[in-house]
């Protein structure tokens, strides 16, 4: 019986097999990828920034990998993208047919003392690259009375968040803890867009972390009509578009605090990260990384990114890997400051 079933299974498998996959080719990588699909897992629901970046990348990257595999995006939301990170690290086949994207802060969660549900070592992923680095800002509604950093330090305010692992919450908490600000964090919104709506209803005063590119591409009118104030920018370098808005790193003179802020906000450098499982064959890892880099220069990709108003300032896989290693090499006392800064302060 079993033998019959096995035979039948093999026969069926033969029927279903893609003929193209069998074609011999000189390049083993091309031979592997030919006629195959590569999954691009997205740790978020459809429609958001990470999702658009991933889908745009997936549409173009296939033609820059030998054998031209079909890249298929798939959403796998859950637990602030921990699910997809765990999945890529542990469950996904380690043969170069899966890559994915998760929250930019996920790689440093363990370092900062958050280990619940973490089943991976961020330094060991096969990092493919990041499509862009991204300055971010705090935004307050024009009627909130918060115009400047000085206001943030002296007047009470409320910002919205979407769960402890989201950058909305982490950045708000870092500011409140590190600078002893009189602000509140109201968490539990489904996402940043809902926080914006709530801000317009005057339920909250603003959001602390809005990626500059999303602001420009989706809600520039708010800026043009002076509906919002930007008291502070978040990142490790000043955004040339915002010369007069203070950078969070410049707000402290204490070198250790500065280092801790640098540690936390360095995630903005790898704003749209992509990674494959650890231990995939070296030639395929190289093919994926090279394919990513080539896509970043592909005129078709760039044209589409421009149409979607997506910023493209790529970081190579090697650069992302190096950055993660640097982050994990920070001195323990700095890590300690950073770890206590991201804690959810009492309301």
């Amino acid at each position, binding site marked *: 019986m079993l033998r019959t*079933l096995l035979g*039948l*299974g093999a026969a*069926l*498998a*033969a*029927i*279903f*097999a*893609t003929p193209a*996959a*069998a074609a011999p080719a000189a390049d083993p990588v091309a031979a592997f990828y030919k006629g*195959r*699909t590569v999954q691009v897992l997205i740790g978020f629901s*459809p*429609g958001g920034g990470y*999702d*658009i970046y991933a*889908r745009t990348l997936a*549409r173009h990257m296939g033609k820059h990998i030998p054998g031209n595999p*079909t890249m*298929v995006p798939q959403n*796998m*939301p*859950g*637990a*602030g993208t*921990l*699910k997809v990170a*765990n*999945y890529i690290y*542990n*469950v996904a*086949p380690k*043969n170069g047919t899966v890559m994915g994207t998760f929250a930019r802060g996920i790689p440093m969660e363990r370092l900062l003392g958050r280990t*619940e*549900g973490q089943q991976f070592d961020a330094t060991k992923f096969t990092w493919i690259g990041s499509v862009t680095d991204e300055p971010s800002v705090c935004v307050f509604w024009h009627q909130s009375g918060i115009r400047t950093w000085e206001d943030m330090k002296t007047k009470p305010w*409320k910002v919205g968040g979407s*769960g*402890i692992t989201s950058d909305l919450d982490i950045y708000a908490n870092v500011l409140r803890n590190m600078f002893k600000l009189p602000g509140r964090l*109201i*968490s*539990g*919104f*489904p996402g940043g*867009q*809902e926080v*914006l*709506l*709530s801000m*317009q209803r005057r*339920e*909250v005063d603003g959001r602390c972390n809005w990626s500059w590119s999303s602001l420009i*591409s*989706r*809600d520039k*009118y708010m800026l043009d009509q002076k509906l919002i104030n930007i008291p502070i920018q978040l990142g490790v370098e000043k955004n040339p578009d915002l010369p007069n808005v203070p950078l969070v790193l410049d707000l402290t003179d204490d070198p250790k605090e500065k280092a801790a802020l640098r540690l936390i906000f360095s995630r903005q450098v790898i704003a749209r990260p992509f990674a494959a499982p650890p231990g995939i064959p070296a030639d395929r890892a190289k093919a994926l990384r090279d394919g990513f880099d080539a896509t970043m220069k592909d005129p078709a990709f760039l044209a589409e990114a421009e*149409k*979607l108003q997506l910023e493209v300032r790529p970081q190579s896989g090697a650069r992302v890997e190096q950055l993660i290693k640097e982050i994990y090499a920070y001195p323990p006392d700095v890590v300690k400051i950073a770890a206590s800064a991201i804690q959810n302060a009492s*309301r």
Partner: protein
Amino acid sequence: MEGQLDMALQALQTLMEPHRLSILVFGVLLGLAIGVMPGLGGVVALAVLIPFTYNMDAPSAFALLLGVAAVTTTSDLIPAVLFGVPGTVGAAATVIDGHALAQKGQAGRAFGAGFVSAALGGVFGAFVLALAVPLLQPIMLAIGSPELLAFSIFGLSMVATLSGRAPLKGLAGAGIGLMISMVGSGTQTGTLRWTFDQLYLFDGVPLIPVTLGLFALPELADLAINRRRIAREVMGNVSLSSQWEGVRDVGRNWWLVIKCSGLGTILGAVPGIGSAVIDWIVYGYAARTEKNAETFGSGDIRGVIAPEAANNAKEGGHLVPTIAFGVPAGASMTLLLGAFLLHGLTPGPDMLGRNLDITYSIIWSLTLANVMGGMICLLGARHLAKFAEMKHETLLPLVMPIVFVATFQATRSWGDLYSLLIFGVIGWIMKRLGWPRPPMVLGFVIGPIFERYLFLSNEIYGYSWLMRPVVIVIGVVIAWALYRPLSQTVKHLAQEFRHLDRTTIKVGPGAWFTGVWMVVAVAALITSSSWPEVEQIVPRTACWAALIAGSLNLVTELFGGYRPKAAAGDSHDLPPTDTPLEPAVMLRRAAEFFGWLAGFILLAGLFGFLPAIGLFVFVFMSIGFKQPLLRSAIFSLCMALFCYGVFDRGLHVPWPQAVLGDIWPALREYSGLM
């Protein structure tokens, strides 16, 4: 205003250009096809189609996308009526009366009424959206977290109506549904609740396996157990004339259509409340407000009209927050939002000003798609009604693999199939023991929204959220909706408890089932005690509700001498199919049925998903139902090739890794199927 009318007419003109119209028709046909496939809904279709719209102009792109999205909830009626298998998660409520009508040989009437009310509902939703365009922003700004909370409580209050005369079971079920919805990472601190270190559960239990498990598998199981055709009475002629009867039913109930469409539109505008519960809420609402509602549940045409109208109307409502603020109200809207951005449209003032013409073309697409969808179904669906006359031994092998592979689309992991099996067994037992299933779905879907807005409302407003005018209005509606069911319930319970027989204890299956749920609730209470306080409140309240309702129910099960005569429609759920079978035979056949399902999971784990479908159909037919080998082989080959074409080639589904692929990696590399 005049300028807006001009713009609306101009948008219609743009859309009526032949190439756009044909794109719309194509979208509608595709949407109808997807709606018929159980488990596949608009979300899958949109995800696949959006890349194809890159090179289209915006009106064409939205004609395609809305053509698809608008009508999946029209054709999902077809499998719901014929097999009791909802075509999308939104058709579960239609199953109750629609399938009962099919069993009486009135599938045609259900079709006629369902398609027409769906089309009318869809047009109504689009019409409301068009009227509301100038007011969209003020409307959305008036609805804050407290209002959203009030809407979700309104939804939960329908548990009372949907429980019928089994209030304790309904309440316990709702509590359990709420508990299950709390699985996953908490919204406040990210605590992993009841995930047991299973990656699958990090994002909670997905909706599709739950609805298909609770509503589709029990019907299929009973088909396998009773071994009869679905249409127990002669179908007669599912002709245009029988459908015409359904159309006339809609005419007689025009006020119900308008009420339900209105409710569907409003609920659709509430982010998070999607088709999976709108159908139930509206069904409950109809059962609560209609005269002579006791026939609901046993083939009342109004039970088809109400959810169908609402579910198509909701699409117009869904678009309100999406267009006005870029806040998607449902899963399909998040994708549509992505498409907006892709075409350079930013939701908000832009779509209500500079790009108003496109907003109107979206509304027209929605309107036309609904009308076309209804007409195509009216003309075409009756041919499909013959499926209900198929014998179980050929019908089951056709429907079951589709249910499997569609369930697998939920998250594309093995967990989907385990969930399907688990909820299938639970659903079948509930159906048998008279536990109403809709309350469980309501608790499951509304739970997370309720929790979210409960916290936000409290955080932002303190207790003053209760004093907001819209909240008060909704509160009055809730009180009105609860009053009659609650007073009936109290009377009914008092009667039941008066008739308790304290001398004899009967430990029947009902008592066992209740007992198991209580053990689950206690275990859930124990395992949740270490969570942060904010993450405990809603889940543990749900546990206690389930536990208290469960223990009261246990008392009536153990000592219940008094049995109210079970009238059809008592629990607003399908009455257990009247069966002359011995309990032992029934149990054996049920075990066999679910055994086959487990066997499929095993086969898929060994040989890969697609090969397993071929194998399963072959073995199921030839051994399970003793069909000729040749026929079984042909069926199996057709099903496997069909699934291969749609899911592997069409949707590029990544198949899970199977044992065979581990043993022979070359085979995995070669086929990509295992």
